[in-house]
């Protein structure tokens, strides 16, 4: 029996494809996590008579629109960063990453201020099921974005040490998938929670 024996480089590439495949699987499970939260949100908002205040009376759609734009822009800057990584322009890649971080952080800043504002106005997470599901769904997305920010920050620090090595390129691919995925989830949040909720 003759086995196929791979040389080192082939092995690394083979590993990379496997790893990215695994990350896609993770994204799939995260999709299901968000799908469950959306289902919970819809059940608690549309199946019953509303109990007390609803989001409609408090939401400020223009803020949410700014949030959306910030997140979409951060996706664009991330793509610029990864393009620079491919060309081994590390410094430029870092700068674009930093901009991505700032855009994402502004998104989180606006979201948190919105939460504080809502709670202050009387739309707290513990007043009824509608509010609970709103804060949980949007908050889970925000938590994901915050983890993404932490990840971006550690990539900015890591790039000078590990350069444009295999391992860094792979992580940038993962992070790109993750960041894009959060954008897509946000589109659904924007549509289902805010636009439909404000109607």
């Amino acid at each position, binding site marked *: 029996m003759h086995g196929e024996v791979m040389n*080192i480089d082939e092995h690394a590439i083979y590993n990379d494809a496997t*790893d990215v495949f695994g990350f896609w699987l993770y994204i799939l499970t*995260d999709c299901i996590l968000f799908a*469950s939260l959306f289902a*919970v949100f819809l059940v*608690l908002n549309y199946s019953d008579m509303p109990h007390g205040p609803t989001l409609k009376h408090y939401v400020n759609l223009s803020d949410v629109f700014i949030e959306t734009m910030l997140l979409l822009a951060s996706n664009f800057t991330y793509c610029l960063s990864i393009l620079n990584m491919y060309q081994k322009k590390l410094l430029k890649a870092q700068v674009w990453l930093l901009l991505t971080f700032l855009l994402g952080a502004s998104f989180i800043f606006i979201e948190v201020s919105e939460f504080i504002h809502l709670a202050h106005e009387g739309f707290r*997470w513990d007043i009824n099921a509608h509010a*609970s599901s709103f804060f949980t769904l949007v908050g889970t997305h925000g938590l994901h974005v915050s983890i993404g920010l932490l990840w971006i920050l550690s990539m900015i620090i890591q790039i000078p040490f590990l350069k444009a090595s295999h391992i860094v390129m792979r992580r940038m691919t993962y992070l790109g998938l993750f960041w894009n995925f959060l954008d897509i989830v946000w589109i659904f949040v924007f549509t289902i929670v805010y636009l439909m909720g404000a109607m």
Partner: protein
Amino acid sequence: MLAQLLFGKLTLDAIPFHSPIIMGAFVFMVLIVIAVLFFITVYGKWAYIWNEWVSSVDHKKIGIMYLILSFVMFLRGISDVVLMRSQQAIAAGENLGYLPPEHYDQIFTAHGVIMIFFVAMPLMFALLNIALPLQIGARDVAYPYLNSLSFWLTFAGAMLCNASLVIGDFAATGWLSYPPLSELYYSPGVGVDYYIWSLQVAGVGTLLAGINFIATIFRMRAPGMSWMKMPVFVWSALCAMILVALAFPVLTVTLALLALDRMMGMHFFTDFAGGNVMLYINLIWIWGHPEVYILILPAFGIFSEVVATFSQKKLFGYTTMVWAIAIITFLSFVVWLHHFFTMGAGADVNSFFGIATMVIAIPTGVKVFNWLFTMYKGRIILATPMLWVIAFFTTFAIGGMTGVMMAVPPVDFQVHNSLFLVAHFHNVIIGGVLFGYFAGFIYWFPKAFGFRLHEKSGMWAFAFWVIGFYVAFMPLYVIGLDGFMRRNSHYANTLYQPYLIVAALGAALILIGIILQILQLFLSFKYRAFLRDHTGDPWNGRTLEWSIASPAPLYNFAVIPSVNSLDQLWVNKQLQIGEGKIHPNRLHYEAIHMPKNTPAGCIIAIFAGITGFALVWHMLIPGIVGLLGIIATVIAKSFITDTDYYIDAETVRRTELAHLKELAQCTVK
């Protein structure tokens, strides 16, 4: 103030000094732990345990650690059984038994949680880790480090669950913690919080393991092993792991929402302010029903391997077997509502789910007939794995039929939450899952440890187990039909008592079976030289795991095999390729690329355990320490680039040569 931040709600009152049973168990556990630590120190094995086991990313060792975890938790789950069965045997009429209701409630909850999450799941992952990479001709799983992390997270979850025995209490809500009972206003203690966080930590471990095995099966198969040339165990594992990936995120969400209700005063499942209790019950069963298939599918895979090997015949109807598994995988997601027909969803909804449930009997029946036809005209060897398979056929058929009975909604309204249901699911979980895993355990034991299990004590254990099972559960069917509900610590009608005494005797027989299994392990270890598996192929096997030495060398396959048929090893043996393996000196070996060991998985899991414990007791500082610890470990690990090494070709050659020598000696004998 500082004490509040450090210890949260935890005070010394949380430790039940006044309860002799709990303190006895606690002292017993502490003594065992001290004894183990003492012997490790005396024999100077700390470095060995840290380097070779705790840090190990080798799937074979992780599999063995899963086995040990499962075994230890099994002892705890079974002591719950002893308590419950003896309580119910005496607590009739005037007699209130010896367990107060609030303690009894914790015991049946812990029994269910432990047996499913910390016995059956680890045992499944043990068998998957031990056998699956070898069956597909791989050198490891796709992500060895993630594999280690998965195990340690499961371990941390189990330890969190164990901590509840001594510090505070466990949920007294039943194994799925239905609200509103599990809401803060009915369960103000920490029991439900222990439940939530031990399952969250273990659940993340399971989810990661699921992703890992899907990727392993998709990407790591030996060249030539196309989909329809995979052993059935690999198919069943793939389907089970797809179920893990699809179902476990739902569990995570459900438990998180319950936690938010309890910690933040939210209203997902409260019965006021718009909360919806049935939402929880739907969500938990959208995870829970696939979960039972996650457990049974690998058992089906094991039966397929064992039947073919011990009938010395090709598996009958391979293609239908694969399709049956795939169809069961799909159907398992459209039947969840049969767990609560009594919710009142209406006749139309109940009929849909009733019929969908009955339909599952068809692919399952196909599988049973395939196994029977495999045995037909086979040269059957009645070794212990095969005995368990035969016991499975009859037991599972009975359990399946009572299942179809309960799939009829009007019947279910009568027997819902009665002992009939309890008898049914034990019938399929013990008769299907556990018997299957026992068969797999005995079957792959030589591959993991290098020697076979002692056969005779195994047969006695088998006899006691199977007879004990019937004695323990058949009476429950009878009184369940008569209206005896589950989860009673006491009953007024003494007419039930004789049945429950018989059930307790059955449990005692099972207990003897378990003691015999422990004796079997002991005897096997004592006679390990005699039971040594010199050939690496003790059962005249059919699949690739039997083509290498037992226990498998660190790198599994010196040369990755190429596959062009199902049962590749069997074909090789028929064509005499296996006879007189090529001498290692005449083969060209390459250096083998291996992942380095890392303790990061264990460290992350320790921090996760701390975080979980802090969340249970609302401890702010330990919670922050735990979370920061996880983040810091992940980031620190990401800076380490030196993660792999090569086993040089000469070492590989020498290892293979040693195996060949042993093989030659035993052929001469």
